[in-house]
């Protein structure tokens, strides 16, 4: 019985691919998964489009990673938002705390939008006690770590989350950054903040079971070359037509976003009706 049970874990993971999001369709599906799972937990409010979109996802430096099952499609996701003049999502509640890291000239990125399809595991399954859920979560973290090491210069990961998930982040040895607060973006649920120094994880790679997984072979940037790049049409479709994210952004935020896409015509992207010709500068 136990032998059979253990065999189910590799066979569960075998048809699952862990990688960066390559298409807008995948980005939307991953985002919808986050929305569904967060809505179940009352971490976000219901909306008509079934997505949890923010300005940070429109940035080209934000990366979303997925666990995609051969038969069931996207079953897990996690995102990483690199710090920029727009700041980080968690600045809303923990700006002073993140600023302490910025003042040390550390390049910071926020881990956010972690979600697994809870229908896979039934209700009330605790990640650290359940091998499939644990490995699914850690493999998502691993692909994010690979990206972080191969494609970015990030020094410090930060995260804020509901305190009921604290045991998982403690297991990953994230250190305290900010205390208990009300997090408006998480539907005014309680949150705490943690941070993790990347060099420190590398130093401890051999001593920690999860870090050993993260620090296998030196990651190559090649698997990330297919990272989804949002076109002007994608920006308009997702962040103007589907949800009024860009239209609600401040001029400063829009100016920065426009500077990230110097060839895009933002005046056309921002039009609520179908613009013509293409909002891409020729």
């Amino acid at each position: 019985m136990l032998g059979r049970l253990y065999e189910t874990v590799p066979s569960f993971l075998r048809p699952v691919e862990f990688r960066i999001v390559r298409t807008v369709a995948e980005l939307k599906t991953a985002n919808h998964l986050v929305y569904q799972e967060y809505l179940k937990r009352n971490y976000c409010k219901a909306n008509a489009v079934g997505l949890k979109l923010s300005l940070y996802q429109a940035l080209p430096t934000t990366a979303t990673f997925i666990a995609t099952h051969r038969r069931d499609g996207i079953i897990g996701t996690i995102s990483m938002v690199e710090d920029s003049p727009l700041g980080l999502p968690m600045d809303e509640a923990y700006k002073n705390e993140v600023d302490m890291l910025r003042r040390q000239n550390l390049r910071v990125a926020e881990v956010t939008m972690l979600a697994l399809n809870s229908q896979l595991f039934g209700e009330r399954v605790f990640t650290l006690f359940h091998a499939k859920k644990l490995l699914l979560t850690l493999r998502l973290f691993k692909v994010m770590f690979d990206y972080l090491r191969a494609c970015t210069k990030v020094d410090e990961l930060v995260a804020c989350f509901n305190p009921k998930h604290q045991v998982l982040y403690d297991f990953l040895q994230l250190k305290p950054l900010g205390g208990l607060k009300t997090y408006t973006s998480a539907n005014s649920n309680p949150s705490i903040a943690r941070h993790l120094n990347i060099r420190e994880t590398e130093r401890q790679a051999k001593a920690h079971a999860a870090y050993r997984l993260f620090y296998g072979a030196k990651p190559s940037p090649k698997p990330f070359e297919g990272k989804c790049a949002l076109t002007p049409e994608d920006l308009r479709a997702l962040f103007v037509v589907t949800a009024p994210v860009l239209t609600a952004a401040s001029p400063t935020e829009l100016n920065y976003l426009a500077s990230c896409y110097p060839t895009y015509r933002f005046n056309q992207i921002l039009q609520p009706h179908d613009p013509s010709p293409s909002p891409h500068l020729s």
Partner: protein
Amino acid sequence: MVDQRTAERLPLAVPMNYVVKLPGGELSGRTKTTNISGGGVELICAEMMSPPSACQVVLHLSDGREPLALEGQISWCRQSPRQRRRFEVGITFLSPTNSDDERFARYCHFIATELLKRYLG
């Protein structure tokens, strides 16, 4: 595809002490777990223990730290089919009332580490 198991059992022999609160007094002993999971432990001992007696378990984990005490209750007890005058006992840990409970966190980390050893080597 749905996996309803809430916690997987690991066949680990962890040295442990137990104190069971029975109507007639306390019963204590030392043994090893036969398996261990996030929800509790199973063990073999010489005494019959009636569910749902309260008990305290002290686990001598291999993490190099002091023994870990957890509260639980006897969830089942049966005569061992393999060893005469021995009983197989299942102990379920009580849910921590506070997620900050450091002992519970340490136990969670131990289980997760053992699961990773099992599957990742």
